[in-house]
């Protein structure tokens, strides 16, 4: 055993093998660039179209026409209102359910999980089929007027959001160890309303917000259910526009993409590790 202090030069017997990593990186770049091309071309082409509404020059004429279209803002605001209503309805139902399933009735968890997965099993077109057959005739006639249909639509959207909302809230509850927090609050003398308002909700803010934004992104341009319930919301409006106009649909698609991006980007931002609450 010797302890030497003299620096010993790097051995020249063999070279460090770096080749596999470099080959991997080559293929990674190939895959990435090819898929990037696939994803960017439709977006780029649409954007390019949206700039060509005026002959011989690029400009934002298509966007101006879109925003000035008589039906754009009414259908858009109607969809926003529907989305917000559906989100609140969904939160009101899912948050207490997820809380109770975590805390008091874990036995019911499989059942609740199964039900929240139903929107994946029942496609939107089948769901609206069933809703119309169920509520389209007495005694539960809900499709008679536009407004009652609208209520039905909002309820359907809330149900559609269950998988996302439940998963989001459930993950949030798990991350904060709801049982210990609740027991700690109880031992300090807090009642149920205080626990929910002061302990659970503040800690769930990120989960609730991301669930809400995801629901918003899905519901805002929803076509199928609104179409068959004859609702004049954003989805049917966009579908109509695509069929009837030349340049405005491209501007519409760009706006819709930006909206989705804003919603998902916000989720990515608020759920980034280390930036909770």
């Amino acid at each position, binding site marked *: *055993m*010797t*302890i*030497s*202090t*003299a*620096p*010993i*030069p*790097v*051995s020249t*017997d*063999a*070279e*460090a*093998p770096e080749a596999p990593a470099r080959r991997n990186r080559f293929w990674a770049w190939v895959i990435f660039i090819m898929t990037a091309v696939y994803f960017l071309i439709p977006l780029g082409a649409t954007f390019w179209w949206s700039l060509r509404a005026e002959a011989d020059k690029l400009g934002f004429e298509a966007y101006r026409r879109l925003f000035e279209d008589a039906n754009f803002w009414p259908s858009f605001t109607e969809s926003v209102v529907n989305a917000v209503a559906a989100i609140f309805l969904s939160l009101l139902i899912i948050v207490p359910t997820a809380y109770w399933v975590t805390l008091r009735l874990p036995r019911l968890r499989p059942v609740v999980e199964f039900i929240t997965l139903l929107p994946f099993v029942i496609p939107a077109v089948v769901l609206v089929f069933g809703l119309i057959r169920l509520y389209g005739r007495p005694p539960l006639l809900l499709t008679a007027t536009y407004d009652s249909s609208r209520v039905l639509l909002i309820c359907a959207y809330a149900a559609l959001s269950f998988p996302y909302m439940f998963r989001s809230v459930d993950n949030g509850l798990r991350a904060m160890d709801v049982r210990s927090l609740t027991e700690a609050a109880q031992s300090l003398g807090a009642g149920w309303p205080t626990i929910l308002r002061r302990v659970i909700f503040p800690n769930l803010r990120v989960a609730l917000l991301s669930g809400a934004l995801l629901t918003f992104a899905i519901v805002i341009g929803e076509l199928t259910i609104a179409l068959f319930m004859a609702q004049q919301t954003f989805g049917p409006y966009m579908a109509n526009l695509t069929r009837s106009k030349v340049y405005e649909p491209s501007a519409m698609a760009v706006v819709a993409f930006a909206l989705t991006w804003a919603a998902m980007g916000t989720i990515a931002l608020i759920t980034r590790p280390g930036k909770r609450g």
Partner: protein
Amino acid sequence: MSGFLSLHGIRKEFNGVVAVDTFDLDVEPGEFVSFLGPSGCGKTTTLRMVAGFEQPTAGTIRLAGKDVTYAKANERNIGMVFQSYALFPNMTVAENIAFGLRVRKEEGSARSDRVSELLDLIHLPDKAKSYPNELSGGQQQRVALARALAIRPQLLLLDEPLSALDAKIRDDLRAEIRRIQRQLNITTIYVTHDQEEALALSDRVVVMSKGRMEQVGEPFEIYNNPATGFVASFVGQLNRLPVTVEDPALGRIRMGRNELRTTSMIEAPTGAGVSLMMRPEEITLDDAEENVLEGIVETVTFLGSIVRVQVGVEGSKVIADLFNERLLELPEAGDSTRISFPPHACWVMA
């Protein structure tokens, strides 16, 4: 300088940060060497360089006379056991053990013979068809050991193999590892932050701190003659009393109004302020002829085979570990007491 495994001038930097510096070690065939140190001391990095997962920035690694510094990990024929077991979850125990033989294209019957041989060695012959997630942590680690040994490695590396296990299983498996290592007489390097493991298992221990070797020696030597303050405090419990040197030649020192004496060498001049070190188990609460200090008992902690008594002596804290005999009279907090230690059991450090 030659050994079966020899590390010479090993240095490793990660983005300019030095993780291991001037590491030199020769390991004899069949020797069991532990790398001991706190996390981040470079012990695992050194092990990974031996395994081939990292390349040294400088230095050479020779194994059985061959320079393997930059050899590929899959061509070194070194067995390794990981802290996380790293068993392949999609394979049974037998398939895990056979993996190294399979990728070596070893023939089927020879392979299954070797697998059952190893299952016997680790005392798990009836678990051949189990999947890793059906085994306990201790069983999984034994399978990992068998998998590493199956390829008849020239060298066995163990990276904190017991850290993820419960205390009781840890002791059993520790004995098991030593038994198997002796039986196969395989050269072994063992990385751990647990001094008890290192002392119990090894022929030699390398104590590391901040990327450097602090001391290399047999366990007894490391414990009783620590070369540096770091080794002294990291390996085992240690008491440290502020004293002044009175007479270096005679080993006389003073703490307040108490005259003390050590038989070990004092390198500091008269009047210098130094530390007097001693192990807790060498302190007694009996009266003795010399090296007696008066103090007040502060806490008494019952640890099973040992009773740990903390005594305040002139503003310093001294820990005494008393062996738990049935007739032991336990002091109580607040009692005044005398502690003593033999002159050969204490030494001076700057």
